[in-house]
Each structure stands twice: as C-alpha cells, then as structure tokens.
C-alpha cells in the first residue's frame, strides 16, 4: 500500500511541482535518486526537472565524485520572502514590522533573562517538568525564526527603493 496522501498529492500537483517542493526543503544536498523517491517521480523525470531548477537558480548543484547532488539556493528563498514583504508592506509598514519583531525579541529577553535563543535552549534543559521544557523549546524556536525574519525585513528596508521600484519617502 502506498503511503497515505501520496495519491492525492499526485492528483493535485505536477511532477515538476513535487520535485521542486521536495528539493527546496532538503537540509543536505541530495542526489536525483533520493529526491525522485520522495517526490513520487521517476529518476529520469527528477533529473530533468532538477536541471531546470538549477537553471532557474532555485537549486544549487554540487559535484560529489561521479554524482551530482542538489540543495536549495538560499538566495532564492530569501528573495521570495523579500518579494512577499515588499508586496504586503510599504516603507512605513516595514519600519513598523521591524519595531514589532524587535519588541517581540526584547520581551523574550526580559521574560527569560537571556540574550539569545541558544541561551534560552540551555535554560530549557534545566527545567523541572517536560511541559516547561517544551514551552521553552517552542519559545526558542519562535525566537530563532523571528530573528531570521527580522534580518530579511531589515534588508527590505535598507534596499527599499532598489527592490520595490518605489520611493521610500512618505507620500
């Protein structure tokens, strides 16, 4: 019996979509065979789509002996998020978003008395109950993701005119 959900996935998506979606989330470079298996496509199909994704700068290829492996191009994901931010926010909106994210980080710092998510994880290892450990772990993960997004928001602000084609001065 196939894994649950795979048939529906194949019905709703193209082979290209599936290869892209799988290849974009691997944490280590993977060969076409590994990506093909996860994407429910043949290895030859995967190879062709992976090559196109390299040409589109969605993926980066790595030579590993005789095998080519593929991993996400970090710049591509970053650019997608920048585009989304610039579509959703104007310059003032981005400044407010930056302040909101900074305030959120400061509230974790104040609440737990630590400087960064790493220190918070260390604190989480010393708690009394599994529930507390889980809560702190989630806060540390949220903090990491918030800090990462803050970096992209700052980039969007810094390059606002060039990236958006709009003026950063208030209308």
């Amino acid at each position, binding site marked *: 019996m196939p*894994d*649950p*959900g*795979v048939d*529906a*996935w194949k019905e*709703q*998506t193209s082979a290209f*979509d*599936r290869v892209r*979606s*799988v290849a*974009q*989330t*691997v*944490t*280590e*470079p993977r060969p076409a065979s590994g990506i093909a298996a*996860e994407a429910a496509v043949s290895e030859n199909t995967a190879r062709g789509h992976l090559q196109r994704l390299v040409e589109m700068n969605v993926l*980066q*290829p*790595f*030579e590993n002996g005789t095998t080519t492996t593929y*991993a*996400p191009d*970090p710049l591509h*994901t970053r650019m*997608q*998020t920048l585009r989304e931010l610039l579509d959703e926010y104007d310059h003032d909106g981005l400044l407010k*978003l930056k302040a*909101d*994210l900074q305030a*959120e980080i400061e509230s974790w710092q104040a609440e737990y008395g630590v400087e960064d998510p790493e220190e918070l994880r260390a604190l989480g290892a010393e708690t009394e109950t*599994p529930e507390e*450990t*889980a809560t702190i*772990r*989630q806060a540390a*993960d*949220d903090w*990491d*993701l*918030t*800090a*990462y*997004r803050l970096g992209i928001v700052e980039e969007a602000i810094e390059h606002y005119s060039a990236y958006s084609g709009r003026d950063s001065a208030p209308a």
Partner: protein
Amino acid sequence: MASPNAYDSAEASHRALRVIRQELERHPAIEVAQGFPPDAHASVEATLNPAQLKTTAGEASLTVRWFAGESPDDPPQFSIHYSDDTGFDCGWHHEPNPHVEGWGHYQERPDAETAYAYESYSFGSKIPTRVVWEILSRLATVLAERDSGAE
C-alpha cells in the same frame, strides 16, 4: 560549482514553513494558509473547508510548526495540529515528549477539559511536503471515524 552552504537551522526552518504553506494551499481541503503570527511567521495557520473534509464541524483550522534540526543530520521537530468548533482537537507531533517512546506521536482530546490521549506514530517521511499530505490524509480518516461514532 559551489561547495555546500553553511547550515543555518533558522534558514532551513523558514524554508520549510514557506513550502508547507504552499503545499497546504494546493490541498483541496484547505481554504487559506498564512504565516502566523502575522508579523513573525513562526508557524503556519490554515483554515480548512469542513465540507471537503466531510466533517460535521462548522469551522476548522490547522496549525503547523516546523523547526529543522540544529545540524543537517538532526531530525526536525514539528507538529500539525487540528481543532474545530466542536471543541475537539488532535495533532501529529514529532518532538521530545514524556508520553510515548520516541518522538512521533498522535494526540487527541474531545474537548479542552479532557486530558489528551497519546499514541505512538511513525511518519512515512520527514520531508515537510510529504508530512503535509500524509497528515491531511490521516486527518480525513480520524474525522470520518469520529463523525460516524466509531471508536
């Protein structure tokens, strides 16, 4: 050819959540999927279409958390959690927990006043895309059993 990039778990998690949002939107049972909270996007929240899921619930939503391992070899921690306006909620989680052996488990409760029941769950794949489709398929089964009154 470049050499492999330095690994950053926040970057990998951000990437996973983006793809999860996109995959959710491809699923016929999902009406809309968005980053949550609206400013920080540390997780994904989706509104489900109860009719498509063939459940008697009026409003139903899904929350997906994903955090890539601290190194590329470490397993990700994630959860896909469902709740609806009957008070019922359930979820498939992959994270350290005191309830079952190992990380993978399913938990459900009929309402917020009742304690969760836990059981082990083994994910077919830990690729974010695959997890989304696998769990939405499991969810349909869980809801069908619940609504037919089967145990």
